[in-house]
């Protein structure tokens, strides 16, 4: 890429540097980038793709917002109007929907890339933490957008989602204090603006979706990008050969690469948007849930473990996992030897693939067991509830992941291997629960093959 204008000499380079430092848009980049950072295999462009997707979301979102009415009576019909009446409305809505899914999916890939390449050491801690917060915000944004069409999917997904937020109530019920202290119910009330999904909920979710979350995300994106430069650019292995550390002007090389990514993203979304329509079910009916009522795919793993126990699956396990994500850079400070190396080399590849295997076997066997064994006891009694909180595939799997992690810690005594093991086992299990929820749950949430 850099070869085209090499011969133009120092004056030309100086001119470019001036361009970069005096132009607001170009100023996002450092004046020079290394060929290592420009190589497509370093980051696979995931961060740039995310920025492009977010920009597309803003643009299509504003177009949709002009025609959308956030009222219980009108919302569904205004979405219909967007699809059938507004010129080009259908394609904007399709792109908005698929781009939202892509945004969640690629945010996860981006996190995997950062994690497995060990880009969270030293000062990069901060950016890891900001990244985790942004992952949560992206998921909240996608979920809050889910309610807006006010169709069956929207209504019941949000009913279930908000009751998951109230899952702490199962615990306060158990110790019999819900009448006095009810944090679960309070959170749900804050989300819904009342006791049931209704106009207040729609208003709240609309505000979150179009103002609160995007503005927060925009600020965090700026900080995230600025931090990369503060942390000395992309994490790279100490063994990077000097030939790939050659510094070349960011403008135009890096900029062209980014424009190419933007064009590809827009192109792919256009094709997908023309070929596949975003779903819109019938108008929300508060008395008749869809059967089965499924949440969006990125929450299906949680819905599956929630179907075993609301308190463990909807509160304890997700909270534990998010806390673990935040804690990773403080637990594992083995530092620069792992920085920028995929899976930290051979040992890491072995740990990771064994963890995929362990996570898979653990999860599948506990789910399979649960299909054949019923817990004894009087359903609805406190003893039974406590038992079912612990002896269910979700909780047991997570405990088994922890045992696997302890085993890895003791046999390798490396903290990097330990986090690799827990993260990989967790993500494998989460994916399997998601697949079960997606393809193996039918009417009344019964297991189907």
């Amino acid at each position, binding site marked *: 890429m850099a070869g085209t204008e090499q011969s133009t000499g120092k004056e030309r380079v100086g001119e470019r540097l001036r361009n970069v430092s005096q132009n607001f848009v170009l100023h996002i980049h450092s004046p020079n980038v290394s060929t290592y950072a420009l190589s497509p295999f370093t980051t696979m462009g995931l961060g740039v793709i995310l920025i492009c997707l977010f920009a597309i979301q803003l643009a299509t979102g504003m177009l949709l917002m002009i025609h959308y009415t956030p009222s219980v009576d009108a919302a569904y019909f205004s979405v219909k109007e967007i699809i059938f009446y507004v010129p080009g409305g259908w394609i904007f809505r399709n792109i908005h929907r698929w781009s939202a899914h892509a945004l969640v999916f690629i945010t996860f890939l981006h996190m995997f890339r950062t994690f497995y390449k060990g880009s969270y050491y030293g000062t990069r801690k901060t950016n890891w933490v900001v990244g985790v917060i942004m992952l949560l915000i992206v998921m909240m944004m996608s979920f809050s957008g889910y309610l807006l069409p006010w169709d069956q999917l929207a209504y019941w997904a949000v*009913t279930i989602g908000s009751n998951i937020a109230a899952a702490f109530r199962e615990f306060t*019920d158990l110790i019999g204090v819900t009448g006095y202290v009810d944090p679960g119910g309070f959170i749900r009330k804050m989300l819904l*603006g009342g*006791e049931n999904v209704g106009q207040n909920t729609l208003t709240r979710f609309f505000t979150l979706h179009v103002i609160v979350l995007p503005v927060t995300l925009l600020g965090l994106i700026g900080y995230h990008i600025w931090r990369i430069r503060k942390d000395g650019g992309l994490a790279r292995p100490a063994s990077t050969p000097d030939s790939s550390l050659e510094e070349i002007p960011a403008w135009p090389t890096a900029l062209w690469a980014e424009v190419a990514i933007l064009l590809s993203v827009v192109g792919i979304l256009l094709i997908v948007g023309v070929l596949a329509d975003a779903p819109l079910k019938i108008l929300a009916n508060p*008395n008749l*849930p869809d*059967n089965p009522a499924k949440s969006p795919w990125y929450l299906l793993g949680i819905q599956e473990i929630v179907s075993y126990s609301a308190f463990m699956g909807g509160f304890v396990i997700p909270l534990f996992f998010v806390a673990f994500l935040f804690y990773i850079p403080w637990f594992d400070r083995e530092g620069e030897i792992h920085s920028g190396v995929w899976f930290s080399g051979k040992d890491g590849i072995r740990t990771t693939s064994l963890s995929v295997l362990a996570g898979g076997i653990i999860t599948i066997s506990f789910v399979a067991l649960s299909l054949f064994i019923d817990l004894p006891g009087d*359903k609805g009694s406190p003893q039974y509830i406590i038992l079912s909180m612990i002896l269910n595939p979700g909780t047991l799997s997570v405990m088994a992941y922890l045992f696997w992690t302890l085993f890895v810690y003791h046999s390798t005594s490396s903290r990097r291997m330990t986090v690799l093991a827990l993260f990989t086992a967790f993500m494998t299990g989460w994916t399997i629960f998601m697949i079960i929820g997606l393809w193996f749950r039918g009417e009344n949430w*019964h297991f189907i093959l």
Partner: protein
Amino acid sequence: MEAEEEEPNVVSRRMFFRHLSWSLLSFAGLAAVPFVLSSVIPRKVIENKRVRIGRPGDFPINRMIFLPKPRLFILRDHKGIAAMSAVCTHLGCVVDQDTSGFQCPCHGSCFNQGGMVKSGPAPRNLPWFKVITLPDQSLEVNLHRTVSPETRCKT
């Protein structure tokens, strides 16, 4: 900044005002937090917890009739009238009636005819609510008062 502080134990006027402004600013900010937060808490939502459901004669004997608006099942038998919630105690979906009792379509909780949990993730039985007869002979369900499944409102 460092150069101004020649005597480290003496707070210069500039530093004093700087600390004062920051303290006042933080205090104002902190003081605003509870007010801002409390404005986000939903106001007292007007939801009628006492629902009129009609007259006893509206309900056939020995059947559970589903009422959509209050999300209730109304049972009338030879002893009287009773009302049971139709909202699953797991995650709030509306349960379906079938021959053996009730089933939740969302996560598969099963309840028997009396609303007791038979299987699935539901942590509690479906609650029964107090029913009273008003002076004009119409029935009213009080969604605040739960009663035992055997309780009937005599008609």
